[in-house]
């Protein structure tokens, strides 16, 4: 694996830190008036999600991590593992609960998502920013209440529970922002 010198560091670079693959979130050059320069890097541990800052000397280096983000299609869950396919190569990978984590509640079969591979193994799954899911259970809608007003919980086909406006009915398809977990609108058509 290649090594990056601290003066080559830039945002988005993937490196190995203490044995874990990490992504550089923010890279800042710090230079005292006289003396050695430092590079302060905000890192995200790609296995645990932890974000913290580490400082490197000017001549220090870090080993690059073999991490790739690949657009994949979600196929199915076999009860234990989540299966994805690269639509270009038709190669399939299986991700475990650790890798899928919270993405689980937004995954609908055939949806596209980003699977992060480290040494060819899935370590995280990022759902699309917006997904369209059907309401499987919610209290009956209130007629005429289409303006502002209260909200109520609705269970979606993936099992996720989101707050929706009172007028939403069971069986409707909703557009959800997966980054916030919030209802956006009724899906078109």
């Amino acid at each position, binding site marked *: 694996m290649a090594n990056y010198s601290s003066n080559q560091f830039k945002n988005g670079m993937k490196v190995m830190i203490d044995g874990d693959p990490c992504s550089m979130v923010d890279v800042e050059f710090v230079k005292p008036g006289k003396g050695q320069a430092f590079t302060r890097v905000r890192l995200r541990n790609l296995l645990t999600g932890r974000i913290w800052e580490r*400082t490197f000397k000017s001549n220090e280096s870090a080993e690059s991590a073999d991490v790739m983000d690949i657009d994949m299609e979600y196929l199915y869950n076999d009860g234990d593992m989540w299966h994805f396919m690269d639509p270009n190569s038709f190669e399939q990978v299986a991700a475990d609960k650790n890798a899928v984590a919270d993405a689980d509640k937004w995954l609908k079969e055939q949806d596209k998502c980003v699977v992060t591979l480290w040494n060819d193994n899935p370590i995280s799954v990022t759902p699309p920013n917006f997904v369209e899911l059907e309401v499987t259970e919610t209290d009956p809608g209130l007629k005429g209440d289409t303006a502002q007003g209260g909200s109520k919980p609705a269970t979606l086909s993936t099992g996720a529970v989101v707050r929706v406006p009172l007028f939403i009915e069971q069986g409707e398809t909703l557009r959800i922002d997966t980054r916030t977990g919030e209802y956006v609108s009724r899906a078109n058509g």
Partner: protein
Amino acid sequence: MQQDLWRPNASIENLRARARVLAQIRSFFAEQDVLEVETPVLSKCAVSDPFLDSLEVSFGFQPGIEDERLYLQTSPEYALKRLLAAGSGDIYSMAKVFRNGEFGRRHNPEFTMLEWYRLGFDDRQLMAEVAALVRTVVPELSVQYLSYAELFERELGLDPHQASLQQLQQVCREHVDAPFEDDDRDTWLNLLMSHVLEPRLHGAVFIHSYPASMAALAQVRDDEQGRQVAARFELFVDGVELANGYHELTDAAEQARRLQADQQQRAALGLPQRPLEQRLVEALEAGLPECAGVALGVDRLVMLALGVDSLDQVVSFMHERA
């Protein structure tokens, strides 16, 4: 996503404000009768400081003849001191300087440096003049003065002159994730300063009386406790370094020794060996008048005047667009 890269990154309005600050600086020095001079940006010699990297330029005469290697200057200091030794009197330069590999929110590989020298001044008198200049641009600024030791003692309960390498390392690691090893005390002091203490400096603060090991080209003297300190100061405004000044070293033999020491440290760090400025030593031998000098980052002063927090708002075209 990067669109319109032909455009300046700063607004035209900010560039107008920048021009006004430059005019205020020039009128400040005109009133004080300090002479504006220009010095070579390209020189046969390079800065000796191991932690500054000069950009190399190949100067070609004609095919078949080997190019001459020249260096873009990281500051006008050497040339200004040669002028002082030649009898220029009080002088200033406001011009571009170049530093290889320096880039960030508050760094650009080329930037505008204001550097000036006052005959008969010491570091304290020069600090007062720096404050006066900054106030012409930012009138409401209040200024504090703290020694390096006072700052470390107040904030960390640490004596920066006496603390051992192990103590410095330990205190550093309580505050900063920096698992590397380094047996130079100054590295840890610099790390504490830049990562822990500078962010705690609010308003304008002059830090003075640096450890003797950080003297660079400043004189070394004894402080009230009899510790050896450098007659050097830095001005920080809201944690950002704005200026660095010295009561200047005038001893030619000591200057020659520091150049050699820098060159040896460069060799030890595997850094390029570049021609040392021996003409500076000759100028000091001829006689550099007692003086104090300071370098101030003009772009950062403009940031302060405009109340903005990144260089790209006050520089027309930053590195990516240059």
